[in-house]
């Protein structure tokens, strides 16, 4: 057997096999090095309008329009006309958003995750808005009343507006921010992204809301081409 193996190795070496092995090894190493030095979202900008490759679920939950998914900005006072290009959150209105994180490579450690939101308007100054991790699954038909509203599935939130702490959303907020000026706001969401990445918790996205009655924070909605700039920036390294 040893002699046979030796003969095989000899013939392999003679026929240039070592060169081929070296070529393969170098190519594989180059691929791996390239892949592992990528940063997420790499060269993909999650903004400047709809970034549907990554934002795959979005809804605005509004008490005034309890079965609508996109009643985000009241354009005619008391007229019930709503538009989607600005999304304003209040104590009875919140935004749900879900990022598809499946393009994160496996075997990494999340070192940082930042969410950048484009604030359009706010009232009063110093109004504080909160980011909650959503616990309950939601999807098509999500509204103030329902978390699913499809022919197959009609499921209500445990508390309208996904306000149920520890059932609809996490009890504590992931982040909060006091708005002093319009413009991009950066929030640290590392713990949530890490949890989702390691599958310690299912990724059901985030909820943005305001607790203070009468206060609002308005964002350019992610569908507003030309203005919107919703960015989730995740930094990672090999474990």
């Amino acid at each position, binding site marked *: 057997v040893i002699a046979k193996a030796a003969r095989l190795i000899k013939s392999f070496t003679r026929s240039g096999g070592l060169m081929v092995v070296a070529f393969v090894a170098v190519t594989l190493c180059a691929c791996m090095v390239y892949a592992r030095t990528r940063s997420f979202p790499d060269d993909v900008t999650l903004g400047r309008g709809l970034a549907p490759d990554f934002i795959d679920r979005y*809804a605005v939950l509004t008490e005034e329009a309890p079965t609508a*998914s996109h009643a985000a900005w009241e354009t005619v006072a008391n007229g019930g*006309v*709503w*538009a989607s290009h600005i999304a304003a959150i209040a104590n009875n209105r919140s935004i749900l958003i879900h990022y598809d994180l499946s393009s994160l490579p496996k075997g990494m450690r999340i070192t940082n995750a930042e969410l950048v939101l484009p604030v359009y308007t706010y009232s009063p100054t110093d109004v504080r808005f909160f980011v909650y991790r959503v616990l309950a699954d939601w999807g098509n038909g999500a509204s103030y009343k329902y978390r699913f*509203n499809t022919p197959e599935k009609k499921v209500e939130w445990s508390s309208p507006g996904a306000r149920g702490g520890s059932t609809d959303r996490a009890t504590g907020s992931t982040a909060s921010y006091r708005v002093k000026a319009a413009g991009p706001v950066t929030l640290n969401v590392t713990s949530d992204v890490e949890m989702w990445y390691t599958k310690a918790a299912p990724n059901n996205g985030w909820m943005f809301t305001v607790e203070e009655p009468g206060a609002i924070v308005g964002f350019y909605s992610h569908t507003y081409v030309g203005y919107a700039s919703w960015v989730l920036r995740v930094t990672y390294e090999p474990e």
Partner: protein
Amino acid sequence: VNNRLALRSVGLMRLLRCAALALVATAGATLAYAADVVPARAMQYVTLPEPAGTPMAILDTTPGLIRVAVPRATCAAVSDQFNILVVGSQSLKGSEGKELYVFKLGPNGEPTGAPEILNTPKVPEVGDSPNQVLSLKFHPKLPLLYVWQDTDDKKIKRADAVNEKYAHLLIYSVDAAGKLTFVAQGAVGMRFDMNNIWGDMAVGPQLDKLYVPNLRTPAKSNFTAVGYIGLDPKTGLIAMEESEEKDPTTKAPVIVKREKVKLWPLGGYGADSIPTGLGYVVGSEGTFTTNGYTTISSFDPENRQGWHVAYSMPYVSSSPIHISPHPNPKNWRFYAVTLGSAWVYSMPHADGQITGVPQIANVTGLTAYSPCVIMPKRNQLAVGGGSMLCVVGLNPEGMLTKEAFAVKINSLTVRAVAYSDRADKLFVAENPKPEAPAK
């Protein structure tokens, strides 16, 4: 010498075999690793065909495509119950009409002969102005065909006297042999705009509403509006409502019967600038979705706090959007196309209200002139374009896939497209003679 040559050739063969194996292994490993890094995402935005820059394959035909010759065709509808295809057309100035072409279809879905050509009823005040059929809808249960017509003459204004007499809505009965007989008309007056080139209708699920296009708020405000004309659910004819009014001469109270029209203004979204009601997705509880100005708008008539939600569509110009519900009412998905553009959308709805995130396709070479026509048996949708018909694939859930091709059609603007689910045939109306390209 021979032995040496033989050995060399054996060595060479081994080398080649090794190299081939190595290449396969390297490619496999690289692909596997790359797949791990960038797996396929849920496709929400796509340029068709993929990758971007790939020219659209333009075929001479596609299986099941049936061409019918109709000059200046504007819309089409198929009845699988009565085995007829009706194509709407635009009449020329001064012509006698010929706005409806009725083709009888055989068991295999093929037309069995020459079409019966009908003139739609018009009031004399229209004179010799061109007239056109904008939408055809068969009643889902009763043997009725709803026809929406409009003038195409800029001399006619909404405030003109002709508008007080011109009927936009025509109702035809359909007999067992597929023959159309005119039975009623409606949609008369200032609430209906004149000279629109687009429009569509939908019968509500309770069969008591016919959602109609190009409504306007009365008189001075002149806002675009959407809404419906009430139907008698038993007969499918226009429901009338009585109201007490003062007689203009005697001033005595009189009971007046009018057609029941309910409309909602589009508010700040599209005042007097666009055709409205280009397709309706109607939910079971009265909520509905239709087009707005650069938006798709959902209405919840029962909710005064939030009765209108205008969803800004990404990548939409100011061109109107035409909406087509999925023919299976249990599939809560609808399709939209920005007319005159290459944008096609697939969107979920929640019982008539827009929800979720749109799936958006930029279809290379498409300049859309027809609504999306969904073909569930084939998992495809078709859109009429400029001298072509574009076909885009759908997955079983109704999402757009990467499949896309086009078929040459002899019409500069392909507007009349219809699909027979029973026969699995796609009908397209084209000009009888080759059309000269536009200058």
